[in-house]
């Protein structure tokens, strides 16, 4: 229980938290803006890494590989959106179906292996757990991911201010009103799911590089971590008056807080095999806080 051990683990936790923060921004788009709980992400959180690592192993550049990972995520999002809107399957079930199907697809992408490693010394990775200490500042993973997050937030801030972006937000806020205003809510839902899963797969591509391998189980429980970050942000920063860009930034910070808490729990001597249980409990607690808080005040919860 040496506090120094804990502190030395913090930079790694921050880097992982930021990468998962990108993933959480994707979850934010479906969960908060579209008002859908999209479980596809448990599949796309593996797909992105699989696509990215396999392409890099095949000799493609890191940015090309990440772009393809993003596109692969968009396709998965499209499938869920299509199942949900045109085939009328409830959103949660549509997500589960896509996620299940993705398991087989992910294995195929990874050449029927459960794990595909990439050597940090041989390939030019953008991020890695080796790039946390003893590297030039501009190569530092924490900085690189932070810059990516800033750029991502800028793009999303612009996009959700456009006519199409506003239509997506309106769809999540009130689908009846949106149709009355001439918005094709099927299309806006599909678009939202595509963007969300594209971002998740991009984050997955970064995460696989960071760990040094793509893994078939990488996405298991991803939605829980993503929701955790979104809800931590809501609970901790909910009172702060903020615009859309700040909300997204808080979600990314939520991811970091989640990983720091996890690190502390591990440091306290918890078995790593119990992590999923701990994650579920942490998320349940944070999900319950807004509800219990409003009950105490006698108001209704809209969390």
């Amino acid at each position: 229980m040496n506090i120094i051990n804990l502190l030395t683990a913090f930079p790694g936790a921050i880097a992982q938290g930021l990468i998962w923060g990108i993933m959480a921004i994707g979850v934010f788009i479906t969960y908060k803006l579209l008002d859908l709980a999209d479980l596809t992400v448990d599949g796309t959180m593996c797909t992105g890494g699989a696509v990215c690592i396999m392409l890099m192993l095949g000799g493609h550049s890191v940015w090309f590989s990440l772009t393809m990972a993003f596109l692969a995520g968009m396709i998965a999002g499209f499938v869920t959106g299509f199942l949900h809107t045109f085939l009328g399957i409830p959103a949660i079930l549509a997500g589960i179906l896509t996620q299940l199907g993705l398991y087989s697809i992910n294995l195929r992408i990874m050449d029927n292996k459960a794990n595909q490693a990439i050597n940090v010394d041989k390939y030019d990775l953008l991020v890695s757990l080796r790039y946390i200490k003893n590297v030039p500042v501009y190569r530092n993973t924490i900085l690189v991911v932070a810059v990516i997050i800033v750029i991502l937030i800028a793009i999303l801030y612009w996009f959700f201010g456009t006519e199409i972006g506003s239509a997506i937000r309106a769809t999540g806020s009130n689908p009846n009103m949106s149709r009355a205003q001439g918005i094709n809510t099927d299309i806006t839902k599909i678009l939202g799911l595509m963007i969300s899963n594209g971002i998740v797969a991009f984050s997955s591509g970064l995460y696989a590089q960071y760990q040094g391998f793509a893994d078939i189980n990488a996405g298991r429980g991803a939605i829980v971590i993503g929701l955790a970050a979104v809800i931590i942000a809501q609970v901790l920063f909910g009172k702060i008056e903020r615009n859309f860009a700040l909300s997204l930034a808080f979600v990314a910070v939520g991811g970091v807080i989640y990983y720091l808490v996890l690190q502390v729990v591990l440091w306290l001597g918890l078995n790593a095999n119990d992590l999923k249980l701990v994650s579920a409990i942490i998320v349940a607690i944070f999900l319950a806080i807004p509800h219990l808080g409003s009950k105490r005040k006698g108001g209704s919860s809209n969390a």
Partner: protein
Amino acid sequence: MLDVRDIHKTFNPGTVNEKCALDGVDLHLDPGDFVTVIGGNGAGKSTILNAIAGTWFVDSGTISLDGTDVTRLAEHKRAAFIGRVFQDPMNGTAASMQIEENLALAARRGSPRTLRRGITAEERDEFRDKLKILELGLEDRMTAKVGLLSGGQRQALTLLMATLKKPRILLLDEHTAALDPKTAAKVLDATERIVQKDKLTTLMITHNMRDAIAHGNRLIMMQEGRIIYDVSGEEKKHLQVKDLLDIFDF
């Protein structure tokens, strides 16, 4: 203008909940008609409005607007021609978006949505002027979230949104029923002003017979999915609540 020919609609066919909501309705509106619709619960008032708006498709019959057959046109496409205000104040606006954002959404009804800005500076000025018509002070709160507004304010805003792009027909589904009497009167006043100013063809459902008589140039009464009474012009002007109660089969 609006031509509804022999439309039928049955909900939950073949089940114990089967309900024939529209049983052969014919309705023709001339441009500029302001028609009030009354009738008991389940008479088919809201159903006919939803049929025209395209919330679902009718089982048989045709609906056309200005000679265009819209019977099989999807709801969001029909929205290009139709302005709507719902009974529930929560229904007509996006609560988590700002007043000006809601108006900007309405301003794009019927136009393709692209990657242009969702709201422009000129639009903000235009919206500010239009909001003044409502006399609710909303022009000073344009960036407030709509969820913070009262029911009456939301209905008035929805009304403005429905008429921001002049619709071929305005459908009002008991839009003052959920409001307190004073607010209801205010929203109804605003309705009258906007309809008169833009000479809008309007179909307004109301529970209040006095309102049904006081507004519009024509009144129809529905019962069991049919139009059972249709009065306009001079005859309507001299109508009394008592006359309606006599026809009304309670």
